[in-house]
């Protein structure tokens, strides 16, 4: 084999994505987050991310809470594990059904999401941070490219800890409703209405609350709803994230 010039693994755009992601991850850890990791197609990658953060290879670096969720239903595992403020990282292709489902529920769980993968990209906004290898080669996951990606995420995250003044999360400037100071928030049903009642217990990024579901049809456990001012105003369907009133 003749020497081939080394390819560019991380260009300008991806390096900027990694930097932004690392600062966000550092801030969330600073605020007490646990990093949950799912990789339904490649469980060893989930384990590698977790061990990277829990037991750093560089002496003196902080041990951080991270757990690989590798049971047969990673969505169910992530749902029960995650709490508002946590981090959820997936290593998966954009068409992975379980990861897609977890990502669309993340706002209701109140978790910040990262998605590492290769091949066709997930749609913009599918995760808070998309760290992508733009290659159609299906062998990419076995060549060290994903390992490099989460190694870099770990390395940059720890650089951020050397800048404590920058670890404070900026104030949330989310737009809110002018009449009730609330916003449309994604919620996941914990307890559907019982009997003739119309109140359902849901979880949102703010925690658990009871909401009125009278505007909707049947409501089941784990359904996603849009809630506003204590009222479920729409069901969010699985197919296209369409809102159906």
């Amino acid at each position, binding site marked *: 084999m003749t*020497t081939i010039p080394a390819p560019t*693994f991380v260009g300008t755009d991806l390096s900027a994505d990694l930097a*932004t992601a690392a600062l966000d991850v550092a801030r969330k850890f600073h605020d007490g987050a646990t990093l949950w990791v799912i990789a339904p197609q490649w469980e060893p990658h989930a384990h590698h991310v977790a061990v990277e953060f829990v037991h750093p290879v560089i002496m003196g670096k902080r041990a951080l809470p991270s757990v690989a969720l590798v049971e047969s239903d990673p969505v169910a595992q992530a749902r029960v594990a995650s709490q508002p403020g946590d981090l959820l990282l997936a290593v998966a292709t954009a068409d992975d059904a379980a990861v897609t489902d977890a990502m669309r529920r993340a706002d209701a769980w109140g978790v910040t999401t990262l998605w590492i993968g290769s091949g066709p990209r997930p749609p913009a906004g599918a995760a808070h941070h998309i760290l992508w290898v733009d290659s159609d080669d299906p*062998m990419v*996951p*076995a060549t060290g490219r994903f390992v*490099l990606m989460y190694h870099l995420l770990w390395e940059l995250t720890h650089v*951020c800890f050397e*800048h404590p003044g*920058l670890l404070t999360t900026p104030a949330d400037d989310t737009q809110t409703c002018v009449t009730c100071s609330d916003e449309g928030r994604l919620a996941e049903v914990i307890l559907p209405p019982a009997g003739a009642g119309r109140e359902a217990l849901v979880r949102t990024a703010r925690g658990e609350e009871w909401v009125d579901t009278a505007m909707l049809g049947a409501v089941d456990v784990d359904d996603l709803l849009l809630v506003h001012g204590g009222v479920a105003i729409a069901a969010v369907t699985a197919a296209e994230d369409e809102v159906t009133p």
Partner: protein
Amino acid sequence: MTTGSTGNPDTTGFLYPFIESEESDVGALLGDLAASARSKAAESARLQQESLHEYDDALRAAGAQMAERFLRGGRLYTLGNGGSSTDAATLASLFSRPARGRPVAAWSLAADEAVVTALGNDVGFELIFKRQIIAHARDRDIAVALSTSGNSEDLMTAIGEAKQRGLLTIGFAGHDGGRMAATDDLDFCFTVHSQSIHRIQESHAMLGYRLWSVAQEHMAAARAGAS
């Protein structure tokens, strides 16, 4: 996220370069992080190419011998600790359920927590892999051990056992190769010359991928030649 502003430069600011910049300049930090990411990624790519080039002949020979064993019904066992155990599992998956090509029997000896904890608790951690080699191995099998230091005791004892039982033994090491580079128990030792555990692991993945590619080529050729 907005870029932090350093605003009006203080005339004495140069005396205290970190006070202002560290506390408020998010933009500068993000710029530094991005540059660091590109630099480390370039080193990862360079090291992979250097390792592939250095071991070109040996990788071809080892891959061919693996293929010959797979065609006789041989199995691949992969071994590693910590992050390297996950890389060992990824390597085993590459052989056993590749996205393309012919799957062959392969698994990581760290994958079963019942076996690993039983052995670790009952006979000692340094024997968690050796005892499994004793239980599983036939002379047509293959063992690939991954250790960034090249010194892991549990791997070294397993490699010695594997060699004694006639397995093809392959080691992936780092730094100066450690005990792996010195032992006669390894038929092939691929040492990635780096001081960074991260960069070593990224090259280990590429070397494993190369072994898989060579083995696949040989298995396809053997099938074509047999018809």
